[in-house]
């Protein structure tokens, strides 16, 4: 095994973050339980009418997934900042944006991917129409990484402050709203038998932009937070 190359640094970081999450796997399940709770509460509040639930199913699942993602966002860089690991990452001879990208990927893999996988079940709880299910899955696959990437920028900006939770929410929500609109638009179109390609392409374009630019913005924001 080689050491000191950028590849080995990314590998080491991925392995370490996954191992740390495995040590705290109880916490890692929180977003999933939260999304299930939110979705399960809708029928209680609105009544068990299948037609009504089917109409709101896709939107409810999207909102539940979005809020569940917010729940774990603050922890993205917090522990690394507290124990000095973040300093070591910044001082390492490798591009910080790449290392931050690895951290965001692990975050998405462990918090958003379980939600995407659970989405069909969440939809089933709300009588999600069968023709919407694939579209909902595609929108989630496109929008959850987008949410993680944009959320990471806001976390990087606020990680230097104590009790930044409220500020983080305020910063993140305006960025999340367009994603939610396009995702809900795609599901709505599928429900009404309309073409869904345009909103999905918008989401994909946003994702491509965010994959390239968000790690760079994160790295710059982290350097500001550390100084």
């Amino acid at each position, binding site marked *: 095994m080689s*050491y*000191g190359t950028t590849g*080995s*640094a990314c*590998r*080491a*970081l991925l*392995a*370490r973050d996954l*191992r*740390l999450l495995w*040590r*705290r796997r109880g916490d890692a399940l929180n977003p999933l339980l939260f999304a299930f709770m939110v979705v399960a509460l809708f029928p209680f509040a609105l009544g068990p009418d299948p037609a009504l639930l089917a109409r709101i199913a896709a939107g409810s699942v999207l909102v539940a997934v979005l809020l569940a993602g917010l729940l774990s966002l603050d922890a993205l860089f917090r522990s690394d900042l*507290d*124990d*000095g*690991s973040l*300093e*070591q*990452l*910044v*001082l*390492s*001879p*490798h591009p910080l944006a790449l290392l931050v990208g690895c951290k965001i990927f692990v975050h998405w893999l462990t918090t958003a991917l379980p939600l995407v996988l659970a989405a069909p079940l969440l939809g089933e709880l709300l009588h999600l129409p069968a023709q919407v299910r694939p579209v909902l899955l595609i929108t989630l696959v496109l929008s959850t990484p987008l949410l993680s990437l944009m959320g990471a920028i806001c976390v990087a900006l606020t990680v230097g402050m104590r009790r930044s939770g409220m500020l983080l929410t305020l910063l993140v929500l305006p960025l999340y709203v367009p994603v939610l609109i396009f995702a809900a638009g795609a599901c709505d179109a599928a429900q009404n038998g309309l073409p869904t390609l345009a909103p999905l392409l918008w989401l994909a374009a946003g994702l491509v932009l965010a994959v390239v630019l968000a790690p760079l913005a994160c790295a710059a924001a982290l350097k500001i937070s*550390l*100084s």
Partner: protein
Amino acid sequence: MRLPSPNSQADGWPQTRSAAAMAPTLRSRYDSRPMKPTDPEAPALLEARGLAYLRNDEPIFGPLDFALRGGEVVLMEGDNGSGKTTLLRVLSGLLEPSLGEIHLQGQPLTVARLSQQVALLSHQLGIKNELSPLQNCRFAIGLCGLRPGITPHHALLSVGLAGYEDVAVRQLSAGQKKRVALARLLLVPAALWLLDEPYANLDRGGIELVNRLLELHARRGGAALITSHGAYAYTSGAPRRIELRPASKINPRALAASGSSEAIA
């Protein structure tokens, strides 16, 4: 020359069989390393010219001029709040200096940052409590590279943590955590060590260990800048190891004093 012998009696560490068996190989490994002669013509490992840092227009330290050559260990002394930690953060590249410039082996710091030359040990040790010392060391070498001729096991043995490789760092004492961070320094290939209060939290054996590691590092041609407010290294009864701090171009005492007077003014 003393070597970083693991588990010296003063430490009170458990003398494990594996430690005893590995010690000879460790010794020969370090002894066989040739001494790197320091070329007086070569550019200094670290050079600061007119270096100062201001926070909200308040001077934290400086302006400072000093050079650090391979084989030198310089002690930065200063009172609490005199800007020692800030100086190390500026020298490592975490903070931009407000005035002046830093050169690493003749290159401006921003360029040299990418060449694995600086290792920083700050108050936050940069080790994960949930992982074991061995896993922390493996992560460090994955991130920063591995110094030739040493393995994570050897490094942990050298800092007196043999037998603790697989214990979660959370269960170790503050001094033992510091030793894990010292093992990381041994493993990464950086030539310049910036150590912020390396003696804090360490017992007598630990202070001697830091001095031995610094001596070893200097003998291999590395350089170190360490800060201390004096309370840990000297009141503990350990002999003051003046030979670790050959007279550098500047008098570190005067330097720290000028830094603190600036900060007060």
